[in-house]
């Protein structure tokens, strides 16, 4: 029963959602609305599991005086500090004249936003480094890729340093590559991926794929 009930649930829910996709009846839409709401509730709850994991590992490291423990303590402080402010605000215990999320927004704008965007901005440096150290035209495939990449890079920017004809030429080459060759390649990849999804989804909905419920 340990395995059978979950598989039955997957199959039943999968078939109901599939039915709702094709059936225009009001009942099927109600089933769809309810089940998709369930999924998003579970999605939200599952996030708590992630937090639980993070807290457990960090507390373990703090109590074991791992060399990085002060950082882990800082992590916990930020996590619970922000969580408390947010919860107090959501439930109206603290209020600001600048709206019901003003405290959260302040932290978000001043801390979360610069950190997240800077993390991604680091990649500009890594691309430059990889361009020099790792991107080798060692095969026909890699050569084509790098050449097409260079042409697209040139076609994406204004080229005020060159005569206008040069800029127009790269923009045209880029437009051609994107609109025709890239469109063909993208279509093939998209259709292939859709077939992969269809195959895997169908195996799951029909109860043939059970590896995600490993014992």
């Amino acid at each position: 029963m340990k395995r059978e009930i979950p598989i039955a649930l997957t199959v039943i829910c999968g078939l109901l959602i599939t039915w709702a996709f094709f059936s225009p009846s009001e009942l099927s839409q109600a089933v769809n609305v309810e089940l998709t709401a369930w999924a998003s509730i579970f999605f939200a709850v599952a996030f708590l599991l992630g937090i639980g994991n993070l807290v457990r590992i960090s507390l373990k490291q703090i109590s074991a005086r791992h060399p990085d423990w002060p950082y882990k303590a800082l992590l916990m402080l930020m996590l619970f500090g922000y969580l408390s402010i947010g919860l107090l605000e959501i439930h109206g215990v603290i209020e600001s004249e600048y709206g019901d999320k003003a405290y959260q927004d302040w932290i978000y704008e001043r801390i979360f936003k610069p950190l997240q965007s800077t993390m991604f901005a680091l990649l500009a440096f890594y691309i430059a480094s990889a361009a020099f150290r790792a991107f080798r035209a060692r095969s026909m495939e890699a050569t084509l890729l790098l050449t097409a990449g260079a042409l697209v890079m040139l076609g994406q920017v204004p080229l005020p340093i060159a005569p206008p004809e040069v800029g127009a030429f790269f923009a045209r080459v880029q437009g051609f590559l994107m609109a025709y060759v890239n469109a063909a390649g993208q279509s093939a990849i998209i259709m292939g991926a859709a077939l992969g999804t269809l195959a895997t989804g169908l195996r799951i909905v029909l109860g043939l794929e059970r590896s995600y419920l490993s014992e």
Partner: protein
Amino acid sequence: MSSMLALQDAATPFVSLDPNGPVDIIGAWLMCFLTLSVFSFLYKDNPFYKVAEHVFVGVGTAYFALQYYKEGILEPVRDHMYDIAEVMGEPGASFSLGGYDADPTIAFILRAVAAIFGLMLLTRLFSPNSWAPRWPLAVMVGVYSALKLTGETQSKLVLQTKGLMKPLVPENVGEVGWFPDGVALESTPLFLTIANAIVVIGVICALSHFLFTWKRGRTLGAVSRVGIIVLMITFGSMFGFTVLGRIALLIERVNELFDLSEPDYAFGTPFLSPPVILTVLIAGTLTLFALQRKEGTDS
């Protein structure tokens, strides 16, 4: 409007909670410090980066948790059930579920079951091998895979195939001819015909490259080779766009550092600009560390 202008005129406060206002002084220094700390990782892993990293994980996790709590728990469970409970007692009452008039009692029970399943998911926190979380996970897997399966087959397979079916030859070729004067090269029927043929051949060849269980003779081998060429040019195009995106983000960060060096954040003096001071501070500390370590190894 007038309030907005007034805010811009007013002196910058140390801490301003107004989300539309200019950045406050503490906020500006904080943003600057965190940005530069992350950039310091380019030199090497160091305590500043570690501070930034752990703050990031803490705040980020809390931020998402709050969002999911409000939109995934409070609203669909508490508020939804409260709404149903309001009409439940009335005779002949119904509750609209996606346009379908459901019996309020049934709607209530359904959502209560969802809440119980949610709690079952949480048991994983205490006993990792429990059977209980599998039920809600199974529901999620079923719902997600069925939605993906139907939606993607429709849009990415059936409609994608339909969208690809375009005439090879533009319809106006009879009127204007294959290579009319005064038209951009890309708009001439001859060019368009060749380009359309490239799409058709490209799609066929690239799809054929993904044929796995077909005997690979000379024909399929050659077709697949052309497919590889198409795929590589496609990857090249994506590569070009990735470079575009990453550099754009870097420019944005630099832009913000420049914005933060406004005198407003530096107590009205050009000498106390946060980016300059913090760069000196971080770089200085790291150099000091490096020198100390060198001395340590020398002795």
